[in-house]
């Protein structure tokens, strides 16, 4: 086995809490730790045991595997994945959109999803967020299922996603309220959000009394209210004018810099995608696969100057190349 195969096995079997395969069960069984002990650090212990086993049993494989690895990525610390997708399959009327799709989304980073029309960018994040069902595969968040994970979601159409019968402030409190938070907890969180977003408008009004940009800002505050581990944004700027887009983009950057939230943004605008991203995930035409991931490491906060910097222009050009190659194929 190569190193990456071991690595994959390790993820699917230990981190992801799925059924361990026979090989892993055997090694972990011999080590004496049991899942039934409900040890909080079972994963860690089991992982350690398994890693040791790998080292013991596969020293030779290991060294050759190390050489196989891309020298560029080998010298960098491997990024810890937050969301792991394995064998994801989704068919629409028998036609596969995703077939045995695998993907890791890094923790605490902004991933922008970009790809040709109809390749299922939104479908992908909707499946991860549990908005639409998928036919097969596993999606895990740090090894946890969706149910055990606190996520936030910002819809493209804020008008249809906010609740017009509630005041803006109650909209933001909604995810806290339904999860049983007290009035004091809700108020405290609202204060916190108002301060960090520097909100200047009166949240005691109804959503339809605000401008589009303000409504989308309220949506984002609502998504962030329960302090999610992951926040999904489905083309959050496409219904906004340019001025508002710039404003919300910068707000998003601020929020992102002040928390360690993992962000997944679907975008149809390449410039916007690169500007926001730590890595741009480029998808192919259907059946959809990962065409490439391009990282963009410019320092934050990014501003207008970032847009004209060499690194930005080059990264964008590279993404465009890959995109056009995929569209023509």
């Amino acid at each position, binding site marked *: 086995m190569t190193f990456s195969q071991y690595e994959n096995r390790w993820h699917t079997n230990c981190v992801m809490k799925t059924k361990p395969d026979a090989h892993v069960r055997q090694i972990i069984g011999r080590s004496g730790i049991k899942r039934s002990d409900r040890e909080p650090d079972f994963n860690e212990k089991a992982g350690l045991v398994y890693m040791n086993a790998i080292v013991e049993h596969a020293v030779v494989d290991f060294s050759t595997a190390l050489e196989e690895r891309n020298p560029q990525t080998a010298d960098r610390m491997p990024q810890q994945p937050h969301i792991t997708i394995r064998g994801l399959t989704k068919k629409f009327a028998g036609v596969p959109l995703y077939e045995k799709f695998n993907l890791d989304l890094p923790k605490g980073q902004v991933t922008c999803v970009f790809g040709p029309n109809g390749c299922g960018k939104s479908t992908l994040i909707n499946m991860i967020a*549990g*908005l639409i069902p998928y036919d097969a595969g596993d999606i895990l968040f740090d090894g946890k299922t969706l149910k055990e994970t606190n996520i936030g979601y910002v819809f493209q159409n804020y008008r249809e996603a*906010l*609740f017009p*019968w509630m005041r803006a402030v109650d909209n933001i409190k909604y*995810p806290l309220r339904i999860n049983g938070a007290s009035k004091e907890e809700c108020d405290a969180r609202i204060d916190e959000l108002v301060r960090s977003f520097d909100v200047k408008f009166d949240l005691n009004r*109804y959503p339809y009394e605000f401008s589009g940009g303000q409504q989308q800002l309220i949506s984002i505050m609502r998504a962030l209210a329960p302090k999610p581990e992951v926040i999904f944004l489905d083309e959050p700027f496409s219904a906004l004018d340019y001025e508002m887009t710039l404003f919300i983009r910068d707000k998003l950057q601020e929020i992102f810099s002040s928390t360690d939230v993992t962000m997944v943004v679907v975008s149809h605008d390449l410039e916007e995608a690169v500007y926001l991203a730590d890595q741009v995930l480029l998808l192919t035409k259907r059946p959809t696969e990962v065409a490439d991931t391009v990282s963009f490491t410019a320092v934050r906060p990014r501003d207008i100057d970032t847009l004209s910097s060499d690194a930005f222009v080059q990264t964008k050009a590279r993404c465009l190349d890959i995109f056009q190659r995929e569209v023509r194929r």
Partner: protein
Amino acid sequence: MNDIIDKSYFSKDAALRVGRTLVGPLLLIVIWWFANNLQLVSDKLLPGPIETFGSLWTSLADGSMTADLTATLYRTLYAFALAAIVGIPTGIILGSSDRIYHLVEFLVDFFRSTPATAMFPLFLLIFGIGDFAKVAVAAFSAWLVVLFNVAYGVMNSRKTRILAARVMGASKWQVFRTVMFFESLPQTFVGLRMAVSLALVVIIVAEMFIGSTNGMGHRIIDAQQVFDLQQMYASILMTGMIGYGFNVLFLTVEKHAVHWAGR
């Protein structure tokens, strides 16, 4: 912005608007007066507006109309209340399950198309010649109106909002109570407004034809039988006012209760 414009519009032009609304009725009364005065229509068929309104005023002032008026109002509201209490929950159940909806779609459409008056004899057989037979038949037809309006409201609720609630971790019941209920509310109010109008119609007809001793319907028929045309027109006008009053009342409540509708 809109608020400011709306408010100034109301305060400045309120008088003008009321004035415009009154032009139609006043014009009709003037035509009525001319028709009566110039003997265009026989005095036996159409008494003058002054006599008619005079008759309405005296009937209200001396309390001779009060019993009939309260009887009709009581029956209409009784029937409406039954329709709403039964109609809203059943409508919600119907709207939230495709399977149940398809099961009874034909029945609801069928009875909705059947004139309520055709079912008078049936309801008389079931409930006897009492007051409740009238209330029941009105409640039945009003219920159908509430039922399908609420059901449509629930069925057509925006899927995005339901998804938004679900992704935030709301349970099925929470989605229902905090989202679907409010989503269906605008359509529910439309149904309630239609239901009260229909209940009034059915009650008036029932009072005319199924052995009633009071009520506005009974009063109109009585006046016609003894050829007291002033009284008949006065009662018709009063019935119209009840219907209009209900409509205005419901529109006002609706505007406040579902302030977000259409925005």
